[in-house]
Structures are given as structure tokens and as C-alpha cells.
């Protein structure tokens, strides 16, 4: 058995955070090597290094025992490393054959030789055992699963010796997953080396020969699958105490249900029933892309309801847009502060007071619509101090602030609104620890004031540290509910992967 791909002591830092710490890994020819780890454990960074997107700070990549330079995407390709990305990178309006052959179409003088292009694409589809997919169909017309297979075909055209799959089954049904596995086994028989990243342990046992576990940027376990069990792998994935920096809550949960969802349905969200009491922080977890954001956005009035009722303080709501949700007493801190949360080229002041100006007549503006500047500055200063926003002045332009400070501004704009429900969609993603703690404290204060709080998070320790109750979502629905003090990280991980 030849080892084709070896990573030796790879380290990668982003500013002060260490994303990968001396990662070593060996993958062998004709084997499927499973790579698992929690959200944020470093899987994506590792893959991007192999793809030539990031350069490692330290360490070597070896192919067939020789050290190679993977400093660019082109080099990675020429070395025979192929990657099937999780997010589809296809051109939905172009045909199947155009997508598969893009950038390497056979030429006839300056023109594309359509005949040979089609023939080459057909040959690859045949190899994969999916020759039934019509070559001239625009890719956008295919099912997600078929698109995933086209993505693989596109990768195979480059004749790689190593193929990396990044969570390829995330969007697939059971039978589609089986079809994908047949293709993977086929590739294995052709003696390719396969790295298979997955959230689902049972998949690793079904298709993998070997498995490595990443945790906090380190490989903590690597062995053949026959020598291990799901429980053991989960222990390796978790394997540490929860950070102690989650502030302790003093308040208690009330009896009154503030937010009630009754059989709420939306695009990508199956019937969901959930009730949140005053003073309660309910966490929403599960593998990324399991419908957590869709749920949050539905409550925030961004996604139209396809059925069911949302009640706030017992009153049914009719959410035709975010302004209806705000009027109903729902505040939403979106996931991406740059594209959704903030007016980047405007001041902290303009950012913090915008929801008040749009929905509350008369408080910060007079009857003619003139903004009461002094009051506005006072209002902003108050919430700046409460969230410890480090900005020279309330007139500082938001884009000049650090990520953590920006996120605090995105939170601050909702504190003055005195909403009944606060929905935080991954509010601490990619920010520094100090800012995290400040935001945690504000979340706790809101709950202590009797608000109903929803905390969507991709990071399980955060859910366990902050929430009184945690629901786990998978494929667009709630699959499990825990009281936080009774739950463990192992249970959270298993509840998502064991339900199918």
C-alpha cells in the first residue's frame, strides 16, 4: 500500500489564532481516509491548504514521498490534487458538458471543438456510472445530487491522484448518498487516494478505511476504522473541558411563554414547534446548514412563512417583512455583519439608531422628521458604554473598527428597541475572546430582563455555556431537545449524526 499524500507538521495561524497546529496526516492509495471534527476544528483550513488557497506557515506537503509546493490553486491542480467543494461551484446556466470541461475544452483553432468536448465529458460521466445525465442540459436544471456528481466529474477531468470531498452528503437524501458512495467506491478501485470530510460518523464507518479526528487544529486520533467506534470518535472530537469564560446567569426563567412557534414551515424548514419563556436562552445547534439560519430568518420576518403561527406574548403575528417582526417585538442580529448587519461606510451613531428611526416615531426625531442630534448621540453613547464598544467617537465610521467591535455595533442597535424576543444568529463567529465575553454578558442581561432569547451557534461549547435549553436541528427540522445542564457535547454531536 503506497502512501500518496502526506502532511508533515503543518501549522497555520490567522493573526493570533492558531487554526492548525503541527498537523501530520498520511493518506494511502486506494483508500478512503475520513476526516472528522467539530465546526471550527480546522478541517476547512486544512483542505484549503491542500487546494493551494492558503499557504501553511510551517510544515511540508509530500506526494509520493517527495516534498511539493502547493502555493497556488494551479500548482495544486498540476500536482494531481482535486477537490469537490461543499458549496457547488458550477455555472448553472451552462450545460453539463461545458461545466465539466471548463478551462480544458479541446480546441479547433481558436474555437471550442464541441464534438470532442462532448465526447470527453461523456467519457467521464460514463466512468462515474452516471452516463444517463444529459450532456446538453443546463446544470441549473439538475437536482442537487446530480450537481454534486457533476462537480465530481469536473474534478475527475483533471485526472487527479488525490481527491478531497468536503462534506459531499450535506445536502443529499439517503438514496442519493448511496449513489454517491457507489461513485466513491468506483474511484477507490481505480487506486485514487480519497480524503472524505464529513459530519456524519456513520458515513465514515460505511465508506472509510481510515479515519483521523481534528480537534482545535490538531490531529488527536488517526487509525483504521476497524479499530474504533462511534463513541470513541466522539470522545476524541470533544475531548476537553468547556471554556470557563461563559458568564454565570443570575436571573431565573419565568413561566410566561414569550415566543411561540406552532408548526411553522418555510423554505428549507420543516414543521417546527417551539416555545420560549421569558428569561430563557434557547440554543439552536446542529451541523452547519441544517436549517438553523432559516429558522432564525423566518422568525425575523425575512423568509416568508409557508404555514403555522408565530406568537409573541400570546399575540399571533403576521410577518410580511422584517419591519413587521420589529413591530411585533422581535429583534434579530444577523449572521453576517458585513453583508447584513451594518452600514459599513456610515458612523457608529447612524448604525446604532437606525432601527429606532425607522420604527419608532418621535423618540429620536421630531414631528418634521428632524433628528434630535444630541439625543441621538446620548443614546448611542449609552449603548456604546454598555457593550464596551471601542470606538474613538460615536461618529467613527464602522468600517474602520475591528471585527469584534463591529459585531458589538450590530448588537447595540437592538438594545434600545426594548424588544420581547432577541434572536442572535451566530453572534460570536470570528471575533476575539474579549468581545465574545462582552456579547455573552449582554445576552445574559437581556434574559435577566425577561426577554426570550434565541442563540443560534455553530459552536457547541458556546451553546452549553450560554443556554438553558438546546435544540438540535438536522435537515431542516428539530431532531432533539436537551436541558443544557443535562447535555454533553457528545450528546449534541451524536444526536445530529444518529438521526437519519
Amino acid at each position, binding site marked *: 500500500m503506497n502512501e500518496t499524500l502526506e502532511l508533515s507538521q503543518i501549522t497555520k495561524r490567522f493573526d493570533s489564532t492558531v487554526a492548525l497546529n503541527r498537523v501530520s496526516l498520511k493518506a494511502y492509495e486506494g483508500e478512503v481516509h475520513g476526516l472528522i471534527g467539530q465546526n471550527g476544528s480546522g478541517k476547512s483550513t486544512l483542505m484549503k491548504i491542500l487546494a493551494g488557497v492558503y499557504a501553511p506557515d510551517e510544515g511540508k506537503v509530500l506526494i509520493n514521498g517527495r516534498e511539493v509546493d502547493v502555493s497556488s490553486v494551479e500548482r495544486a491542480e498540476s500536482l494531481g490534487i482535486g477537490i469537490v467543494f461543499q458549496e457547488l461551484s458550477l455555472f448553472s446556466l451552462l450545460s453539463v458538458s461545458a461545466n465539466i470541461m471548463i478551462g480544458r475544452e479541446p480546441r479547433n483553432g481558436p474555437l471550442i471543438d464541441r464534438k470532442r468536448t462532448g465526447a470527453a465529458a461523456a467519457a467521464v460521466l460514463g466512468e462515474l456510472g452516471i452516463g444517463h445525465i444529459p450532456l446538453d442540459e443546463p446544470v441549473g436544471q439538475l437536482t442537487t445530487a446530480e450537481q454534486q456528481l457533476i462537480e465530481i466529474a469536473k474534478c475527475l477531468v483533471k485526472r487527479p491522484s488525490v481527491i478531497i470531498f468536503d462534506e459531499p452528503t450535506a445536502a443529499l437524501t439517503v438514496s442519493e448518498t448511496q449513489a454517491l458512495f457507489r461513485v466513491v467506491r468506483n474511484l477507490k478501485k481505480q487506486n485514487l487516494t480519497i480524503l472524505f470530510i464529513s459530519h456524519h460518523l456513520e458515513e465514515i464507518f460505511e465508506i472509510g478505511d481510515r479515519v483521523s479526528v481534528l480537534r482545535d487544529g490538531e490531529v488527536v486520533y488517526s487509525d483504521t476504522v476497524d479499530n474504533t467506534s462511534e463513541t470513541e470518535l466522539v470522545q476524541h472530537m470533544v475531548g476537553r473541558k468547556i471554556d470557563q469564560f461563559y458568564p454565570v446567569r443570575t436571573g431565573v426563567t419565568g413561566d410566561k411563554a414569550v415566543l411561540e412557534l406552532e408548526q411553522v414551515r418555510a423554505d428549507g424548514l420543516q414543521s417546527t414547534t417551539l416555545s420560549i419563556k421569558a428569561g430563557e436562552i434557547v440554543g439552536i445547534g446542529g451541523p452547519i446548514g441544517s436549517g438553523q439560519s432559516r429558522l432564525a430568518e423566518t422568525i425575523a420576518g425575512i423568509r416568508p412563512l409557508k404555514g403555522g403561527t408565530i406568537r409573541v406574548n400570546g399575540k399571533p403575528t403576521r410577518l410580511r417583512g422584517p*419591519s413587521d417582526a420589529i413591530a411585533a417585538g422581535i429583534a434579530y442580529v444577523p449572521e453576517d455583519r458585513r*453583508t447584513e448587519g451594518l*452600514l459599513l461606510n456610515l458612523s457608529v451613531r447612524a448604525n446604532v439608531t437606525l432601527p429606532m*428611526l425607522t420604527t419608532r416615531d418621535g423618540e429620536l426625531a421630531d414631528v418634521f*422628521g428632524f433628528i434630535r442630534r*444630541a439625543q441621538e448621540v446620548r443614546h448611542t453613547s449609552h449603548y456604546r458604554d454598555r457593550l464596551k464598544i471601542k470606538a474613538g467617537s460615536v461618529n467613527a465610521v464602522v468600517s474602520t473598527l475591528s471585527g469584534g467591535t463591529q459585531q458589538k455595533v450590530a448588537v447595540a442597535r437592538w438594545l434600545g428597541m426594548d424588544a420581547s424576543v432577541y434572536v442572535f444568529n451566530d453572534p460570536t463567529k470570528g471575533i476575539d475572546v474579549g468581545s465574545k465575553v462582552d456579547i455573552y454578558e449582554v445576552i445574559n442581561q437581556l434574559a435577566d430582563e425577561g426577554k426570550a432569547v434565541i442563540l443560534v451557534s455553530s459552536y457547541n461549547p458556546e451553546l452549553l455555556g450560554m443556554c438553558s435549553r438546546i435544540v438540535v436541528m438536522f435537515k431542516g427540522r428539530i431532531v432533539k431537545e436537551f436541558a443544557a445542564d443535562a447535555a454533553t457535547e457528545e450528546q449534541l454531536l451524536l444526536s445530529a449524526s444518529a438521526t437519519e
Partner: protein
Amino acid sequence: MAEESGKVNANAQREEDQGRLWRSLRSVLNSSLVAVALIALVIYFSIASPYFFTSTNWYHILQDVAVVAILTVGQAYVIITAGIDLSQGSVIGLSGVVSALLMTSGHPIWVAVIAGIAIGALVGLINGVLITFAKLPPFIATLATMSVAEGASLIVTGGEPVFNIPASFSNFGQLGIGIFPYIALVAVVFAVVFHVILAYTRFGRFTYAIGSNKLSARLSGLNIPRQLISVYMISGIMSAIGGILMTAWVNTAMPTAGSNYELNSIAAVVIGGGSLFGGEGTILGSMIGALLMATLSNGTQLLGVSTYWQEVLLGLVVLLAVYVDNFRRRKSV
């Protein structure tokens, strides 16, 4: 407790003062390069031509800039929302000929003026609806209404100019106080009013918010369609007023009188620090931009530069202004 809130108030007051200082400083800095360029041009032309720095000539420059300045007010709002209004020039023609036809057919002047303004408001409304509800890009929506409005003014006039404008009306277009023609004073009034709205009211804040990040503005509860439609209606109304003033000024209404005026108003906003990506720009800066262009074309004309070369020069000024502005912005970020 009282002491503490007093301290907070004092802090807020201090910050407010700093803010005001910083704001005015920044607005000066933002438009300063253009303002400096304007002053330099004025000095140069004053030296180069004995006719330039005379009250008659200033009267001409201000008369010249009035219509563009009024359009620029509307265009500034549109561009701050990250949009563009190409229909302005055609609205000048359409509202001009409609109000002229009404005047010459014996209707009172105020009726004719209101009808002309209503046409501008209507085109703005259509632009806004196309952009918000039909979700057309502003460029395409206003390109289409530009063509429709131009066609409409040719249809109602049969392509002929409308003459015999009532004297009381055309006098208003030609007379003035000192070096200030009435039509320029009208432009100043509108510029001041819309500057105040933009800088000090919720409406102005919402205009910047949409241009800075439409999605974030929507998530903050802003009614995006209402705001955008209002902004395009402002632009339409400003264009109509421009068209009516132009009719008074030239004593004739021509269906194609406003051709390419929209390009001048866009250039004025951009020279004055506006960004086509939205969220930036001021009325003051845009006015300086408009004045710079009018001064340049007047001065070069006095120096005997051919109109062909004037066009070339104007294009170069736009390029230079935007390039310098980009450069300055990159450095400050």
C-alpha cells in the same frame, strides 16, 4: 445620580461638539480638492480673460448652472441610494413642452407649472416602481423611461419647438437681482432645502442607509420601496422644475432641450464626492461640482477654446476628480 447623568450629558455634549467639528472638517476636506480646483480656475480665467470676472459674466455662469444645479440636487439623492437617474434630461424636455403648451393655449401659468411638475413626479414614480417592484436595475429602468419620455415630448409637439411663451413667464427666466438670476436663486433655495433634509432628517438618514447597505437597512425595519420611490420622485420633480425654468430662460420649449443634461448632473455629483456605489455624497459637494463644470465651460469659451475641445476637457476633469477621490479614499482606509 443627578451628578452622574449630568456628567453623561456633558460627555455627550462634548462628543456632539467634536462630532460637529469633525463633520464640517470632513465635508470641507471632501469637497476641498474640488473647491480648490474651482478657485484656481476662477483665478486663472480672471487673469487670462478681462471679461471673466465681471458681473455680466457671473450672471451668465449662474444662469448657465441653474438648471444643471437643480437636476444635480435630485441626482445626488438618487446616487446616494446607489442608483442612477438617466431620465432627467428627457423629463426636462417633456415637462417643458407640456407646461409651455398649456401656457400658450391660454391656461394660467400656475396650472402649467403644476402640470409640468406632476409629469416629473409621474416619471419618478414610474422609475421607483420599476426599480422596487419590478426589480429592474436603476440603469435599465431609467434608460427606458428616458426613451419613453423623449418620445412622448416629440409626439405631443410633433417635433416642433413651442414658441410664444407668455412674457411674464419668460421675464422670470431672464431677469434677476444683481448678479443673481432668479432661476439661480430658485436653484439655491432647492439646494438649501434638500441639503437640510439630507443632512438633518430621518429621510436623509434613510437615503444614506439604503445606499450603504440595502439589506441591513431592510433588516432595521426600513420600508425600502417607499424610500426609493420617494427619492426617484424627488429626482423627477427636480428635473421637471429644471425643464420649466429652462423654458422660461430660453423663451422656447424644445422637446429635446434637456438631452444629455443627466450626464452633467451625474458628473457634478461624482466630482463633488458622491460614489456610484452609494452611501456617500453631499448636496454642497455636488453644487461645487456643478459650478466647477459651468465655470470651466464658460472660461474656456471666453478664451476661444473650441466647443469640441471643451467637451474633451470636461471629460478629463471628471476622470481626474474621480481618480483623485479614489486615491484619497484608499489612503484613508
